[in-house]
């Protein structure tokens, strides 16, 4: 999948803007805070129906305006039938007092989840290191982001699981407030959680199994170090029957008024040699680690999705020195990645590197939410 054109209205610091992209490589250059990243976010929004990192839509609308609108013109190139190209128009509309609307070719989706996975996307940002340093939620977000784009059934089960979990937790809170307990109702929620939990567990396990070797390979490619790294899936569901676990933790759940076991507690353990990356990895190793995760995510989506994902890379020089960036761009161009977007604060740095490769590319100079010709 490729994006050929983008129109923004009152999106973040853009009052209005219009872009025509290269189908291969695009660079947004400009000083910090000028709106380069916001363009990546606009593309991401059209693919995932939300701003990356879950920013609230109210903060996405341009300051002192009421609504925003994004229009993306995509080219659908399915990998199997190379000749079948079709154009798709995606529009995102957010306005106060109304539900967010995503339209495909002028028809609004009934459920936003139906759109997820149609245009696969991977975004690489400096904040990715939070995956290694923060709590397990960031790492589950990575799992969910990858699998939701590939597997509608995964997303459906995840949504169901989260809804039931919320109801169960609300019920536990209400019981504590009213000093009562309805064991029959909790039984029902337990029963309802088991099916989706099992599906999600199996799919996450299978994903990590095929993801690990690819991930390790990318790490070796971008770091010159010889250290062994690994990424291990951790879930309570590995250790026996989930139904029993729910039963055993019920008393604890009742006291804490929340559900203490289940796939919403799953984690990925990042290892370097035999240690935890978070505790023993250097800054450089940490950055290389999460970058490899993202590149492997790209590779995984590319192999398993019917269309090539769009790759968005924000400020890669933050992660790597110039030599490494050169290596990375070489890797991307040689490994036949699809359409790529890069941002950089230096006007010519990326260009200097790209010159060494015969490739189609376009440079956009961004200043104060505007494209300078």
């Amino acid at each position, binding site marked *: 999948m490729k994006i050929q054109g983008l129109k923004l209205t009152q999106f973040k610091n853009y009052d209005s803007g219009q872009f025509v992209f290269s189908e291969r490589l695009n660079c947004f250059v400009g000083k910090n805070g000028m709106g380069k990243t916001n363009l990546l976010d606009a593309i991401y929004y059209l693919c995932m129906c939300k701003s990356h990192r879950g920013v609230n839509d109210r903060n996405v609308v341009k300051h002192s305006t009421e609504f925003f609108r994004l229009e993306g013109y995509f080219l659908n190139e399915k990998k199997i039938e190379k000749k079948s190209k079709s154009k798709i128009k995606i529009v995102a509309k957010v306005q106060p007092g109304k539900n967010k609307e995503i339209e495909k070719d002028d028809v609004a989706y009934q459920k936003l989840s139906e759109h997820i996975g149609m245009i696969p996307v991977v975004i690489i940002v400096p904040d990715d290191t939070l995956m290694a340093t923060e709590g397990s939620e960031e790492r589950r977000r990575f799992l969910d982001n990858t699998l939701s784009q590939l597997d509608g059934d995964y997303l459906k089960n995840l949504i*169901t699981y989260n*809804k*039931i979990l*919320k*109801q*169960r937790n*609300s*019920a536990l*809170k*209400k019981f504590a407030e009213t000093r009562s307990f*309805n064991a*029959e*109702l909790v*039984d*029902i*929620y337990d*029963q*309802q959680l*088991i*099916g989706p939990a099992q599906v999600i567990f199996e799919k996450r396990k299978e994903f990590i199994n095929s993801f690990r070797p690819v991930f390790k390979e990318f790490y070796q490619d971008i770091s010159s170090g010889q250290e062994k790294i690994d990424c291990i899936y951790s879930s309570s569901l590995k250790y026996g029957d989930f*139904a029993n676990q729910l039963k055993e933790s019920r008393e604890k759940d009742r006291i804490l008024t929340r559900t203490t076991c289940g796939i919403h507690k799953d984690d990925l353990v990042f290892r370097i040699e035999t240690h935890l990356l978070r505790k023993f990895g250097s800054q450089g190793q940490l950055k290389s680690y999460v970058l490899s995760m993202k590149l492997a995510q790209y590779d995984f989506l590319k192999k398993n999705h019917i269309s090539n994902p769009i790759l968005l890379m924000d400020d890669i020089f933050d992660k790597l020195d110039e030599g490494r960036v050169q290596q990375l761009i070489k890797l991307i161009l040689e490994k036949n990645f699809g359409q790529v977007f890069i941002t950089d604060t230096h006007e010519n740095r990326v260009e200097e590197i790209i010159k060494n490769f015969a490739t189609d590319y376009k440079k956009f100079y961004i200043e104060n939410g505007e494209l300078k010709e």
Partner: protein
Amino acid sequence: MNFTSKLVQESVEAFSSLPGIGKKSALRLVLYLMNQPKETTHDFTAALINMRENIKTCSNCHNISDTEICGVCSDPRRDRSVLCVVENIRDVMAIEDTGQYRGMYHVLGGVISPIEGIGPSDLNINSLESRLEKEETKEVIMAVSPTIEGDTTIFYISKKLKDMAVKVSTIARGVSFGGELEYADELTLGRSIVARIPYQIKGE
């Protein structure tokens, strides 16, 4: 809007306080009534006052009723062997409109949703149990919306009824009734009640 008459203004405000009626429509209605004989307005307001003063909830099935016991519950021609469990009174109207159902009803008053502060004890579940103990019901049809909360509710009630001598069935799920029973077109809803399927309690 400047009315020059306080009487007109008050009437317009009264109408426009109703859902779906804006100031312009309200003014049109007021002007219409103003130009009709006085009796039209008298009859109109009398009907509303009478409705509001005398409307009851059926003490048996919780449907709306003019009397202590509603028209369905007191009708000897209705089939007392089947009982249809619905969320609200509008569902009763939707099913009655299909003309394909001749059994009894039980209005729950919602679905179980602790997030919205609705637990099982906030719904008419106890009265359903006591009805089934004394009435001659053979089959309970769960006509509850196909949402997760609807599922929880069906599941919960079915477990309560497990030891009673009644069969539990659900109306065909996935038929296009747009998530809510009241929006179902009559044909689809009618058909799905006729083609209902036995309910299997999960994990048993």
